[in-house]
Structure formats: C-alpha cells, structure tokens
C-alpha cells in the first residue's frame, strides 16, 4: 500500500528546476529515507507533500502526487485537510512560546471538534505518551515549552503534530540539531511511530538512513536516481552514482 505516490513530479523555483521527473512510492507504515547531497531537492520534494512550498513566490509544479487517492497538486486541492493528514517535523525544534500543554492542544483547538477540558487533557496525555515524554513532563505541563532541552522540544513538536492525528509524518532533518544520544532516542521513537504512521525522513546522514529506514531514495541534482529497499540501496546499488555516494566518494 502506498501512502504517497509520486509520478513525474517537476518543480521550479522561478526558472530553476529543482525537481526533474521524480517518481517514487512511499509505503504505508514504513520509514522511507530520502538521502542525497545538499541542494539535491530532497527537502523541496518533502515540502511538496504538504504544499509548504506554496508559501514561496514564483514556484511551479507539474506531475502528480497521490495521497489518499487524490492528486494534491490539483488546483482545487484543499490545503487545510491535506496539511492535517500530512504533518511535518522541522529541522529546528520550533515549539510555540507557550506552555507544553498549550503547544499540544494548538492543533485540536484550531480544528474545532471536542475541545472540552477532559478531551484536551486526554489528547495531551496520549500525544505525550506516544512520543515517550509523558513520564518526564506530566508534572510540568504548565511549564514554558521553550525551557525544555532540544531533544524534548523536538519530541514535543512531534507530539503537537500527533495531536492533530495525521497519517503521514514528514521529517526534515529532524535530528540535525541533536546530540548523538538525543538522535538515538528520536530514532527509537520513529521505530515506535511507524506502527501508526507512515514516515518520510529527509537526511544527509547516511548512517541514520541505514539505521532507521525500510526504504531509501537517493536524489542527485533534482533527480531520483534510485529508490528501493534500504538494504539494497546500501549494499548493492544498481546505479554507479548511488554507489559512489553511499560509499562516501562525494557528498
């Protein structure tokens, strides 16, 4: 089953083509890593999936990205439900300058539904439990989120995302500001989360891709050079350029 299916995706910033005829299929309930050197277009592709690139002037897209049976590049696509079901974790942990509790209930409040105290309390507990922060923070829910450690902040951001019940988690270099221990814990968390969510992680840390992902895509200069099971990409790549990259000959 595919969570995201990309067909012949082209993408331009003004006259610069950042993605060239990209094809890929991101599986449900798996972790898919997208690797490649800086500027290869991996973050751009990730930001197509929740249409965050729309915030930039002068972008243009062609091709198809099918999520939940709908082409999200369609001019009529409604971005609010799309972004609700396809959430994003950013490179820098970016909690709002609010309390831990208020950060998590932000999404549910904005989306309406049951916003009674009990319902929100329950969402906070569930979300924090799913990112393994509940035991650490259950007595500190009123504390400012900005006082947390970097790793806690990043987990909190994931919890904030989970509170809106997405189906896909897009992670854009989620560990690049964390130390090795923090990185290891977030990676453990990703393995937990993949039972309930489909995860796409962009990273230029090849070891990380090898450690956590089920599938891997290798991108270079806007092209998806190779896409397949992680074990194959790292041990018997079919394309010479992939082999050169994963063996560290450039990048």
């Amino acid at each position: 089953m595919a969570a995201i299916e990309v067909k012949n995706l082209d993408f331009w910033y003004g006259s610069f083509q950042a993605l060239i005829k990209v094809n890929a299929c991101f599986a449900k309930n798996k972790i898919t890593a997208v690797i490649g050197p800086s500027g290869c277009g991996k973050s751009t592709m990730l930001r197509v999936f929740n249409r965050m690139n729309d915030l930039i002037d002068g972008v243009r897209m062609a091709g198809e990205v099918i999520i939940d049976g709908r082409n999200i590049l369609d001019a009529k696509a409604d971005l609010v439900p799309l972004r609700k079901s396809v959430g994003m974790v950013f490179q820098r942990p970016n909690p709002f300058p609010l309390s831990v509790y208020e950060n998590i209930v932000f999404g549910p409040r904005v989306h309406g539904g049951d916003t009674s105290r009990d319902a929100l309390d329950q969402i906070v507990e569930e979300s924090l439990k799913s990112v393994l922060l509940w035991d650490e923070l259950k007595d500190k829910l009123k504390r400012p989120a900005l006082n947390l450690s970097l790793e806690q902040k990043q987990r909190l951001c994931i919890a904030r995302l989970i509170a809106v019940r997405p189906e896909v988690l897009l992670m854009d270099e989620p560990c690049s500001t964390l130390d090795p221990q923090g990185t290891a814990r977030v990676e453990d968390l990703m393995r937990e989360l993949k039972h309930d969510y489909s995860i796409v992680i962009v990273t230029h840390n090849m070891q990380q891709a090898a450690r956590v992902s089920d599938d891997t895509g290798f991108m270079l200069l806007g092209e998806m050079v190779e896409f397949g099971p992680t074990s194959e990409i790292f041990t018997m790549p079919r394309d010479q350029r992939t082999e050169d990259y994963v063996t560290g000959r450039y990048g």
Partner: protein
Amino acid sequence: MNSHRSQKLAFFCLLLATLLVVIPVGMVVVIIVQKGLPGISWEFLTDVPRKGMRAGGIYPAIIGTLYLVTGAIVFALPIGLLAAIYLSEYSRDNFLTRVIRLAIVNLSGVPSVVYGLFGLALFVVFFNFGASILAGSLTLGIMILPIVITTSREALESVPEAFREVSLSLGASKWQTIRHVVLPNAIPGILTGTILGLGRAAGETAPILFTVAAFYLPQLPSSIFDQAMALPYHLYVISTQVPNVDEKIRYGTAFVLLAMVLFMNLLATIIRSRLRKNKRW
C-alpha cells in the same frame, strides 16, 4: 597633535554633544516640576476653573483630554491594526502597496496644524459634527494612525516565520495562524505603539484647536457631540490669552500634562523591555 590627544578630543566632543541632548530634557522636567509641583493639590485636580481661570482647578481639561485620547484610540487602533495585518501578512510587494507604505510614512510627517484644518473641513463642517469630542477624537485618531500602523507592522513582522510555518503545517488556515499565533506574539509591540500614539495625541494642541477645544467650559461634556476642554489648549489659553494667571496654575497644568505623557511613555518602555526579556526564540 598626536593620535592619543586627538582621540581624547574626539571623545570629549562626542560626550559634549550627548550631554547637550540630555540637558534640555532634564531642564524641562526640572523646571516644570519645580514650578508646577507646588500648584498641585487634590482641589487643583478635581475642581473646575474659577474666577476666569485664575483660580480653581483643571478637572474639565483633564477629563476632556482623557475623552479625546480614548476616542482617538478607539478609532485608530482597530483601523491601524487591520491595516498593519493586511500590509504585513497579506499584501504582496507591488506598486500599490509601495504607494500605501509611502503614504503612511508621509502621513506621519504632516504638520499637526494641517490635521487640525483637515479635521475642521471634514468632520466639523462636512460631516456636520460641529466642534465636538467626536470631531476632535477622529482628527487625533487620523494623526496617530501612522504610528499605530508602523509599530504594529514592525511587531507583526518580528514574529518568526517559523511560527507561521508550523501553524500552517498543522493545518491552520492563514487567518487562524494570524489570529492564534502571530497576533498573540505581536501584542506587546502593538501595545507599545498604541501607547506612544496615545501620548502623542494627549499632547497635541493644533489638531484639537479647531475641532473640539473649548476656551472655558465649567461643566463636563455630556455627549460626544459636546465641546470639551483639553490640557494642551487650556495651557495655551491660560499662558497667552488670559492675563494675570498665577504661575502656579500655569506650571501646575504643564506638570499634569507632562506627567500624563511621560507616564504613557514609561508604560510603553516597560512593556517593550518585558517583551525583550520574554523573547527567546
């Protein structure tokens, strides 16, 4: 002259120039406090002017100024804030918005007496409000609009882009993002600008001269269509139009006006410094 000496000389000149800036401010405060403070009493603050304004208090002028300032802000804050939101969050950089921005900058450079004349023509005569609190408040409101817009825009634009991004990525609409993320984080800055605008409105004489200010009005205004006394104009009247007014009354009035304006500026400074302290993103 060796370089050490010339450096000392340069340093001295810079210090002197800086002191020259501080001295007039300090002297204004010292003189007004010294001469005005003896005139301040409970009676002075709560009594109406008596004996052709040579005795009694300045209560109607204080209240009149408060009414005018309140009216100006009721008018300028919503319009200014909405304009600032449009300019910082929605408008794209094109010819029209550049003209609007230019107009706002120029609006703040218009001499205040011109606002007074404009208010007379538009509100007093054309809309037939007469010389009234309504006309005066609207005139003052237009005068402080550029301050409110400019500071609100700065406050909105200083909210990190990352907050907007996160909010949108969580599925919030653009308006929800502005309403729940951008505005709450910009409020201290908006408040600061608003209070600075209030201070400006409280102190101006020219815009209220033709639009609201009464020479002498022993009772308080009863509706927004009444004229009112106001502190700056009252000060002008008792200093130049009425002979033999006791110095205590004149400087006492100046003291009250100065205290009001300085208090507002102080409030704005406190809010701004607290904002800076809390800002750790």
